[in-house]
């Protein structure tokens, strides 16, 4: 039932109102996502947010309670895993311990009755790609964690799936190796041009690798956007809080029209933004601003630069090498994190000390109004 011809606009993966319930517990709630071909798509969220369950429904290990899963426009909801053109890189790899590296990699091709000579060629090509040609005859347990991860990747990629599913594939590795493999994964993805659906709870990993990120919370998607948008313009309080360090100032929407939205902060001043974030007049909402976008001055040093600002008291100051992290407490008790780059010694010396009053300001394009959750 394929619609359209070759190179059609059918998404590689489409989740059409997918819901998964385990007894009374709703793990995934009415997901609607399209993932275009060749995209590096990340599902990001805390543990228990439903991201892995979603991945398992795409792979065919779980059946959706409601909704449909489509691969290249074809409804595969009722198809078992072995009849889907997806392959999975499992958390902790799930390599077959009784088979050598090359027989692990050959497993999928053998099941599909690919010609023996071709299997040999493709397996050795794939091991070459991940840099494990010399380890072909070894058992998985004789390899390091990073090597096992590469075998898992080769075992999946050798089948040239339409979609590669990765479930926290780097979670078990140490930081340095993780960074290295992030770059490698991204390179391989560009090289093979396969759609990657990547599950992680590591926001930094998501930001550096993805073309697009879906931030999930409690079984629902809070925002789907490219990494920059997710970071710079979080759609909800949850996204703002989950990605990076955010400053959330609570307040009430006092006016909202197409051109501008005004939020009266509990801490005093009113902020204006060009976008509404979907907020309506009279609603409670938050103003979000990133720590590095705030400018901190002593309270008296009030430059009338037309910028919005808010007053507070410095609670602590932490030297971190490239920057100094200041905590400032506002009148309503909200704590703000400010990152001041350590440009020169003089500027650093002029910073207010703990206990001093201080003024925080920002430019209008760096503040956003977010609601508790998507409507």
């Amino acid at each position, binding site marked *: 039932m394929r619609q359209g011809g070759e190179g059609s606009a059918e998404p590689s993966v489409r989740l059409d109102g997918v819901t998964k319930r385990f007894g009374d517990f709703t793990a995934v709630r009415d997901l609607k996502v399209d993932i275009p071909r060749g995209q590096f798509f990340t599902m990001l969220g805390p543990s228990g947010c439903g991201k892995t369950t979603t991945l398992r429904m795409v792979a065919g290990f779980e059946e959706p309670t409601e909704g449909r899963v489509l691969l290249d426009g074809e409804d595969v909801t009722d198809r078992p895993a072995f009849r889907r053109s997806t392959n999975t890189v499992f958390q902790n790899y*799930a390599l077959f311990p009784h088979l050598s590296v090359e027989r692990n990699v050959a*497993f999928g091709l053998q*099941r599909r009755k690919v010609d023996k000579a071709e299997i040999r060629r493709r397996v050795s090509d794939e091991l070459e790609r991940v840099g494990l040609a010399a380890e072909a005859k070894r058992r998985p347990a004789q390899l390091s964690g990073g090597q096992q991860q590469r075998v898992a990747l080769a075992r999946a990629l050798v089948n040239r799936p339409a979609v590669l599913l990765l479930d926290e594939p780097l979670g078990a590795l140490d930081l340095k190796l993780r960074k290295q493999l992030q770059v490698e994964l991204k390179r391989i993805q560009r090289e093979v041009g396969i759609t990657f659906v990547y599950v992680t709870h590591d926001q930094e990993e998501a930001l550096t690798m993805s073309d697009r990120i879906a931030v999930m919370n409690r079984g629902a998607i809070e925002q789907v956007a490219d990494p920059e948008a997710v970071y710079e313009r979080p759609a909800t309080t949850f996204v703002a809080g989950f990605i990076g360090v955010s400053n959330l100032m609570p307040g009430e929407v006092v006016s909202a029209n197409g051109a501008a939205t005004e939020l009266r902060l509990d801490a005093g001043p009113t902020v204006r933004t060009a976008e509404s974030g979907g907020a309506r007049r009279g609603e409670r909402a938050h103003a979000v601003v990133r720590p590095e976008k705030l400018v901190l001055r002593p309270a008296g040093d009030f430059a009338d630069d037309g910028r919005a600002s808010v007053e507070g008291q410095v609670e602590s100051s932490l030297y971190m090498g490239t920057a100094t992290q200041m905590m400032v407490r506002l009148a309503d008790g909200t704590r703000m994190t400010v990152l001041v780059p350590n440009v020169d010694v003089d500027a650093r010396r002029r910073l207010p000390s703990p206990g001093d009053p201080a003024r925080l300001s920002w430019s209008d394009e760096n503040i956003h109004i977010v609601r508790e959750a998507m409507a």
Partner: protein
Amino acid sequence: MAARLRKAGLPYALLIPGLGWLAIFFAIPLLYMLFESLKQGTIDTGFIFNWEFSNYTNALSDFSEQFLRSFEYAGLATLFALIIGYPLAYVIAFRGGRWRNALLLAVIVPFFVTYLIRTLSWETILSDSGFVSDTLRTVGVLSEGGRLLDTTFSVVAGITYNFLPFMILPLYASLERIDPRMLEAGYDLYGRRRDVFLRVTLPLSMPGVVAGTLLTFIPAAGDFINAELLGTPNQYMIGNVIQSRYLEVADYPTAAALSFILMALMLAIVVLWARVAGTEALLGTERERR
């Protein structure tokens, strides 16, 4: 320095009770039996030790039939126990859910009644006028004069029944350890149920198969209760011969020689089996644990 030496010696010191136990209850009786097996004489004239190796050759030639039958019955019983036990262990391990422990208990519960009583009750169940024989005759599976008791069938069935738990428990232990994601990986890589079972589940459960078959085969080959109660002298196994040589005929040298031959043959079979089925499986898990 002294403290470190004492510490280094501790593990060996802990071995002493176990080694002592083995020495007194295993090594010494074994040596005594070896000594006994090389004696000559009768109970009336007394036994003299004079390196009587003919005890071995005579025992082997006189009772080769029972030896062969022992291994045949034990082999059949092991095979049947595997065929019955594997699916059972599989279901308990993968589909047991919250009933797992209850099902495992059910496997062990027969042990609460002694071996002898259980075998005796099988004698009643399979007897000529019993319910089972009657029913089978009515349905026509068993001919008019046909019997269940005192046949190869009843003896092998008895052995299978009695040693089944020894098969199920190690199988369960090895199946239960298999990471379910391993099976998912099999399905994910285009394996159908049959492929995943044959290529993933079965090889990963081989340590359990090896342990289970050994734990069933070894005691089964030396068993005499089942042949005694559920069979006739035509079904007697080597255990029956040893038992009667010791307790009825009082021909200790032959009984001891038979025991040693049984031990040697069993050792040979076990080593051979472990080579064929075991090395791969055992090595695999050994490395996996690292």
